[in-house]
């Protein structure tokens, strides 16, 4: 890609026409994520009146911190979520608006479809016994609770964080302690579970913690402590949950699995090519290395089982300049070839849509075409079908951030 624009990029409508067997909702989702969204004052007003979330704390983005309240994100008519926020990119964003009393998504002044926002769960207005607002302890997707127990990544200690990642700059602005207290987590989950039908999944993620006797030991211990606190709220030993963490060793993973109720495990390989990984994720490469990171993910299948381990990639970042692939075709070929190796080992690869966030090294770069994301989604989905890989752990409902896993909703 290299930021050149001398090719015609197909519009949303053109891509829908060209790929009639791909859900137009999946295409729309990828395009909204790629181009992002703005909210009109009418949309913000409708969200404020309708019981939707206008405030959220996350480890990559927070909303409402500086009094800039707007809907946390969108839902499409097919029930899928679109995880996006008003980030400036080189492209024209979509606009969420209200027309004839209906919440809609607009592109260039034209209504594309009706949308909804994310509702506010009941626990959000409450505080824990330590006085911490619960919305700071857990954020909420339409059906998922997100608990991010540590909001700093130590790959940034010597500037070797991943080049698309804004966690470090976000943390510096956040002004909240990096570590979330286990008792606060216990109380927040307890409160959240009082709302029948609101949540079906709990996801944990955090920045990497490199310290401990073995690399990542302190991160492992933190997850165990938090998962045990969450687990006290359930009558079953295991509960629907996902941990997105560093690539832990086999013995570390065994510890997490044995000592907690965790059911699924994700460690993100981020970019499916050893050379690009080394350039884009220098800290991960230095401390663990591409091959070992990959091996550790494969090993996890032996503990959690097939269908309960996957790995995320930042879709499109393999085309970042100046070290990325030179063309979309080349990037797609290499990515899907490597994703197949994951599939052969029982690991599903899921992608998010790369958005060069402010505060990341890649900020300001132009991301790939919409068509690229459609081909990537389709390619990853086809691999899952071929290798019989279930994607419940990161599907449209339990996550909602992956256009490729939305495709699994319709049997082929």
């Amino acid at each position, binding site marked *: 890609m290299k930021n050149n624009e001398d090719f015609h990029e197909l519009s949303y409508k053109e891509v829908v026409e060209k790929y*009639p*067997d791909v*859900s*137009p*909702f999946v295409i729309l989702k990828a395009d909204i994520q790629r181009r992002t969204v703005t909210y009109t004052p009418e949309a913000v007003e409708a969200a404020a009146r309708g*019981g939707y979330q206008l405030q959220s704390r996350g480890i990559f983005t927070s909303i409402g911190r500086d009094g800039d309240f707007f809907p946390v994100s969108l*839902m499409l*008519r*097919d*029930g899928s979520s679109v995880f996006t926020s008003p980030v400036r990119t080189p492209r024209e964003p979509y606009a969420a608006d209200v027309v004839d009393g209906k919440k809609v998504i607009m592109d260039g002044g034209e209504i594309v479809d009706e949308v*909804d926002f*994310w*509702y506010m769960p009941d626990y959000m207005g409450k505080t824990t016994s330590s006085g911490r607002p619960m919305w700071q302890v857990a954020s909420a997707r*339409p*059906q998922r609770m997100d608990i991010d127990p540590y909001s700093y990544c130590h790959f940034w200690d010597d500037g070797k964080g991943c080049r698309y990642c804004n966690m470090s700059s976000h943390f510096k602005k956040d002004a909240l302690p990096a570590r979330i207290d286990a008792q606060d987590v216990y109380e927040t989950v307890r409160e959240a579970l009082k*709302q*029948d*039908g*609101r949540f079906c999944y709990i996801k944990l993620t955090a920045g990497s913690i490199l310290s401990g006797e073995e690399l990542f030991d302190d991160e492992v211990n933190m997850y165990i402590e938090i998962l045990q606190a969450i687990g006290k709220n359930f009558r079953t030993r295991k509960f629907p949950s996902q941990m997105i963490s560093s690539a832990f060793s086999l013995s570390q993973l065994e510890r997490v699995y044995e000592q907690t109720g965790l059911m699924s495990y994700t460690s993100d390989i981020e970019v499916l090519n050893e050379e690009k990984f080394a350039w884009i994720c220098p800290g991960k490469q230095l401390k663990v290395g591409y091959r070992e990171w990959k091996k550790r993910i494969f090993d996890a299948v032996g503990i959690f089982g097939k269908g309960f381990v996957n790995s995320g990639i930042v879709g499109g970042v393999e085309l970042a300049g100046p070290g990325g692939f030179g063309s979309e075709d080349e990037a797609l070929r290499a990515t899907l070839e490597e994703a197949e190796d994951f599939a052969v080992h029982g690991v599903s690869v899921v992608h998010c849509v790369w958005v060069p966030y402010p505060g990341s090294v890649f900020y300001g770069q132009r991301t790939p075409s919409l068509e690229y994301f459609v081909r990537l989604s389709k390619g990853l989905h086809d691999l899952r079908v071929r290798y019989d890989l279930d994607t419940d752990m990161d599907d449209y*409902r339990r996550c909602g951030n992956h256009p490729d896993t939305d495709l699994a*909703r*319709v*049997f*082929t």
Partner: protein
Amino acid sequence: MTAKFAENVMRMLEDERTVKVLTTVDSSGTPHSVVKNSLRSDEEGNIVCLELIESSRTNSNMTGSLWFGRKVSILLVGRDGSSLQIKGRPYKCVVAGPVFEAHYRETRKQLGNVDLGAVWIIAPDEIIDESFETRWREESDAHPLRKHLDRIRAE
């Protein structure tokens, strides 16, 4: 969105003894029918369908119908033998929010320890009276040539 249902349709939808069958198709056109006694109308003149099994063939076909504009069919058979067919399009899949939660609570109250996969909103396109008497009358009026001659043989 659509006009409210006529009184006879509402009566059938609300009657617990009405048998309600939902037929969907997959991408190859293969039909799939299930009894869905949870079908009901909402205030806007749509049909509401509760899907308890998230990974069901119906849920998959409904999603495919919403994505690609395929129609679904609902057959209502009343206790008196009358029947109506409603053809429509899945318009919305609700998996979160107050509407979903209300159905979730109600479903669990009625059925015990079950879950709710989705609340489907189906926009009706046409309602056809499929009762035999009605269809027989229509056929006789519209196609006077279509009959066996022995039926009109002189005694």
